[in-house]
C-alpha cells in the first residue's frame, strides 16, 4: 500500500521479505529445495556479498518449506509477518524450522546451544542467517550437532565456508537491480521514473558499492528525498 509522500526506497519497501527474491528465469524455489535436499543432503550454504539478497532469499524460500517454530534473534529486525509461521507443501518432509539471525556472536551462540538441547530433533531445519559471524570452533560444533541429531541446515554467509556445500550464490546484476527498482517505483506509484536511473548508472553504483544493492537503495533513498 502506498502512502502519499512515501519514499519508495524506505526500509518498509526494501527490507528482506518486502521484495520477493528473484531467481534467473530457469530456476525457482522448488529447484532450490530439490538441490538442498538432494545434492546438498539437507545442509546448504547461501553465499554472496553484503546486500546481495541472502536474507531476502531466506524470507522468500524458507516459509515454503514448512512451519517455522521459532524466529530467534539477538538484535536487528524481525522477519516480516509473511515470513513467520506458515504451512507449506513440504511440511511432511521438513517437520519444523528454527531460524536464528545472528547479529551478536556470543549471545546468539549461547542461545543456539540452549535451544538445541530442548528442541532439536531429526529432520528439523536449522536456519542461521549470518553464519560467518560464528567462531570457527562454533561453526564446527554447530555442524557436528546437526550431523549427530540428523538436523537439516541452511546458512548464509559472505564467504564460502568449509564443511557446507554451496547451495546458491546471490548476486545483483545491473539488469536485476534495474528490474527491482522499477518494481519498487511501480508498486509505490512513484512520480520518479525508473528510466532516470539507467542500467549504466546503476552498474556504476553497484560497482562502487562492491555489489551491495542495499547500499545502492540507500543512495536512491537520499536521491528521492532530494527530489521531493
Amino acid at each position, binding site marked *: *500500500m502506498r502512502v*502519499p509522500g512515501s519514499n519508495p526506497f524506505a*526500509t518498509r519497501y526494501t527490507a528482506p521479505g518486502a521484495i520477493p527474491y528473484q531467481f534467473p528465469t530457469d530456476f525457482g524455489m522448488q529447484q532450490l529445495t530439490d538441490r538442498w535436499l538432494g545434492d546438498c543432503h539437507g545442509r546448504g550454504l547461501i553465499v554472496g556479498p553484503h546486500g546481495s539478497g541472502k536474507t531476502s532469499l531466506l524470507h522468500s524460500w524458507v516459509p515454503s518449506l514448512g512451519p517455522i517454530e521459532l524466529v530467534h534473534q539477538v538484535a536487528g529486525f524481525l522477519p516480516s509477518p509473511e515470513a513467520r509461521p506458515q504451512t507449506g507443501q513440504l511440511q511432511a518432509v521438513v517437520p519444523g524450522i528454527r531460524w536464528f539471525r545472528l547479529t551478536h556472536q556470543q549471545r546468539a551462540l549461547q542461545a543456539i546451544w540452549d535451544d538445541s538441547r530442548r528442541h532439536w530433533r531429526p529432520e528439523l531445519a536449522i536456519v542461521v542467517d549470518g553464519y560467518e559471524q560464528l567462531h570457527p570452533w562454533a561453526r564446527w560444533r554447530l555442524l557436528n550437532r546437526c550431523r549427530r541429531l540428523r538436523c537439516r541446515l541452511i546458512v548464509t554467509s559472505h564467504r564460502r565456508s568449509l564443511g557446507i556445500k554451496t547451495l546458491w550464490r546471490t548476486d545483483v546484476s545491473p539488469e536485476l537491480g534495474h528490474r527491482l527498482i522499477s518494481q519498487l517505483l511501480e508498486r509505490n506509484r512513484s512520480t520518479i521514473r525508473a528510466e532516470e536511473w539507467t542500467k549504466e548508472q546503476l552498474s556504476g553504483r553497484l560497482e562502487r558499492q562492491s555489489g551491495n544493492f542495499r547500499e545502492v537503495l540507500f543512495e536512491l533513498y537520499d536521491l528521492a528525498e532530494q527530489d521531493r
Partner: protein
Amino acid sequence: VEYRLVGTTWGRVRALELSVLWYTEGKGNEDTGLHYFHRLTEDQLPIQQGDEPDRFEVQLPQAPLSYEGSLIKIRWVVRGRLLLSDGGEVLVDRMFRLGPPVRSS
C-alpha cells in the same frame, strides 16, 4: 472516525479490525506503536451498508507527533483490516497528521 464497508459480500467477512497506530518510515529500522485496537467479529459487524457510515471515537495521545524529516518520518494512520473467510484480507490505511493546531496568520 467514520467508515463505510462498500462492495463486500457479507458471507465472506470473518472479522473487521479497526486500529489507530503510528509508525516510522525512513532509512533505518522501523518502529511502530498501536494506540487503539478494536476487533469486530462476524456477529458484531456493522449493520450499515452503503450510505450511512459507522463511527468510532479515539482520544489521541500527546505524542509522538507526526513528523516529515529526510531520514525519518512519523506517520499516524487509521487502519481498517477486513478478514475474509477464505483467508484473504483487505487492508486500508488513512493517514492523518497529529500535531499542534496550525495557526492562521
